[in-house]
């Protein structure tokens, strides 16, 4: 050290690896007898940048948005970010047959209920 340091680097400080702003996407949640349907608003996120994780009753959605920027910005009101949100889902979801589609920046997630969880009509003899 030669006394010129403005601040002293602390050993063991955790480096900042990711600096993306995290935003919770707006969602609509619907349910019918067969499934739970979730619509999440994620404009600008590519299909491959979306991660959907269902584990032990919790559903985590994550989507990275990286926009291409060219030229000088006259104004900029939105930018790169990470959409992230977690939900708790009932255990009765059939995880193997979950389907997702992406259209116009809206992610539609179909969470089918397992057979045992569907309502049944009992006939009276």
């Amino acid at each position: 050290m030669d006394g010129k340091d403005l601040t002293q680097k602390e050993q063991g400080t955790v480096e900042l690896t990711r600096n993306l702003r995290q935003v919770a996407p707006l969602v609509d949640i619907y349910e019918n007898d067969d499934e739970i349907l979730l619509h999440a608003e994620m404009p600008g996120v590519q299909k491959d940048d979306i991660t959907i994780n269902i584990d032990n009753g919790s559903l985590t959605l994550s989507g990275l948005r990286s926009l291409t920027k060219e030229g000088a910005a006259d104004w900029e009101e939105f930018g790169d970010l990470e959409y992230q949100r977690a939900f708790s889902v009932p255990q009765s979801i059939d995880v193997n047959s979950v389907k997702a589609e992406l259209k116009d920046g809206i992610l539609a997630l179909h969470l089918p209920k397992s057979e045992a969880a569907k309502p049944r009509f009992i006939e009276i003899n």
Partner: protein
Amino acid sequence: MYTRISDIDRMFDAMGLLRGRLGNVFSDFDRTLGHGTDWHVSGSYPRTNLYDKGDTFELVAEIPGLSKEELKVKIQGNYLEISGTREVNPPENYQVHRSERGSSSFTRSLTLPADVDSDKVTATLENGILSLTLPKSETAKPRQISIN
């Protein structure tokens, strides 16, 4: 190991982090507000970015959930207007648990820094992002002046 530049850099990193945290206070408080950019007043919808690429302007707008039929773009000189109506209806026979995305109709008008040639404008809509390529009109284009 100790360099002044990297130290300054680190300091600003920490400040940036704090700023980000403060910006997110609002979104933590009310998730539906979390959509806006940190310190922005989220008054205008849709949000847009405008880039100047010399001969053309590139305008991108964040418009989730609209098909290209539901969207209208009007251009005259350096005036640009984006309007549309979004209907969010619950699918039939479904019970609604949560509804954060509402139906909305919007109009946003923008003034571009220069006139554009409206005949040559191209527009694409992908993943909820509208991109407009707006060639500047001849008089507004930068010109190389040769020195005699």
